């Protein structure tokens, strides 16, 4: 499999404070790759840096042969790299339909928007029902569905999700993970940041562990689920004593 998203020796900082140290990782085409790690490890910063919302200090981000670093965010979206941000960031005062249409803003996505909209409504029938209502009148789970729906409207080749399960009821989290899996089966490559390490590792083909801005481990989802250190640090198992 060819490397699709390829990150090389990436550094980023907040002012003088380094946030990402020499990050190298890759996501192959068609994969689901998860990024797990404690709060403040730099997971969100990494996604924001890939998406062009945060400046790269050094290193490179490539999508296939196209360099993404040092490009403005909207050009990265045009390449088909789309982020569902932490906290959803919907256009709360605009209608559900407006939110979805804005998701298809780029030229490439706009041409296909009616067809894509039908697909999104099939995946999330609730969005079709609520399409005329302002986005901020919906429940948290529905808002997350809208955030994912809006991202799908942009015809992602690489879909990045930042904590899609945050603050949602377990049943809805199940739904969201089902949708992510389905999207992947339909050919969308997924890069997923999750606090909910168990579910993320069960879903992902591979995963990276990020701590204090550094990649400290990697493996397949299954390997990491059975790794003792990961079990203690992220999956809530007690250390084996004696």
């Amino acid at each position: 499999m060819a490397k699709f998203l390829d990150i090389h020796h990436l550094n980023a900082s907040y002012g003088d404070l380094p946030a990402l140290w020499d990050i190298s990782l890759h996501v192959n085409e068609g994969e689901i790759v998860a990024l797990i790690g404690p709060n403040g490890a730099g997971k969100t910063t990494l996604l924001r840096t890939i998406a062009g919302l945060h400046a790269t200090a050094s290193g490179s981000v490539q999508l296939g042969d196209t360099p993404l670093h040092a490009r403005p965010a909207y050009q990265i979206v045009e390449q088909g790299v789309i982020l569902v941000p932490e906290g959803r960031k919907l256009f709360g005062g605009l209608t559900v339909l407006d939110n979805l249409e804005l998701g298809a803003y780029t030229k490439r996505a706009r041409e296909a928007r009616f067809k894509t909209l039908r697909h999104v409504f099939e995946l999330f029938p609730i969005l079709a029902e609520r399409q005329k209502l302002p986005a901020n009148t919906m429940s948290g789970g529905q808002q997350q569905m809208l955030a994912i729906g809006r991202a799908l409207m942009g015809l992602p080749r690489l879909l990045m999700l930042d904590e899609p399960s945050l603050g949602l009821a377990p049943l809805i989290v199940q739904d969201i993970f089902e949708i992510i899996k389905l999207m992947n089966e339909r050919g969308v490559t997924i890069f997923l940041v999750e606090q909910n390490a168990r579910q993320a590792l069960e879903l992902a083909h591979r995963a990276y562990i990020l701590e204090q801005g550094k990649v400290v481990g990697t493996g397949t989802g299954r390997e990491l689920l059975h790794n003792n250190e990961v079990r203690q640090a992220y999956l809530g198992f007690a250390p084996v004593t004696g």
Partner: protein
Amino acid sequence: MSIESFFQTLVFGLFVGGIYGIAAMGLALVFGVLKMLNIAHGELVMLGGYVSFWVFQAYGMDPFVSLAIVIPTLFLLGLALDRAVYRHIIRLHGEEKIKNSLLVSFGLTLVLQNLAQWLFTADERSIQVSYAGDGLNLMGVTMPYTRLGSLLIALLVTLALNYFLHRTYPGKAILATAEDFEAAELAGININRVYMMTFALGAALASIAGTFVTVTYGLTPSIGVIWTLKALIVIVLAGTGSILGAFPAGILLGVVEALSGAFIDATYRETIGLVIFLLVLILRPQGLFVRSG
């Protein structure tokens, strides 16, 4: 006071209010999207007035027709000002952005005012069209064509802006950027372009107000401050998130000023506007017309 003079006052309040509304929509648009208060907005009203005046002087072109020249001229000036001045402030954050935007736009106010004085002198100018004295007379209430035309165009422009913002992709991109600029970027919107177009659109709206001022009142290089102040009162009335709400709020201010001028005392008409401004800030800080923009 007779019933005729009451309605006459009311109608003139409506006419003034339409101009307040158009001027304020421009300020509200820039405030809502670029998140900075452009104190030099009134100066754009003034410059728009001068463009209209000189086109009339040079070619005798009717001010309602020459809007087709005035609006693009100020739109281009808006693009240039965004490029040269405002672009550098928009990306600042928090206190730094607030301070810099106020200082820079206040500085620009002085520059534009003095530039206008140097170019156009401090003489009061106005456009006297051939039909200046004519008007409709409805049951004793006079409606001069110039003012009626101004109000009508103001109304049309508001409807057009409403359509543009809510029904077209570029318009929705403006509203999206106003809601959350990062989410707009993640949707693939080039927000620098949105900022530039929005500022230019604000300048274009100011120029329409400036044309009406020149037709119905008079123009000097120093009128800008008053128009920034009026527009500011109106956007507080409307609610600072509401762009289109600025139009009804402008009408309201115009009517209240006119009636208080007639019923209380002409010297208090300005004061009443400011009293309402304070009352709204204290009692209903979210504004009277929120969520309509």
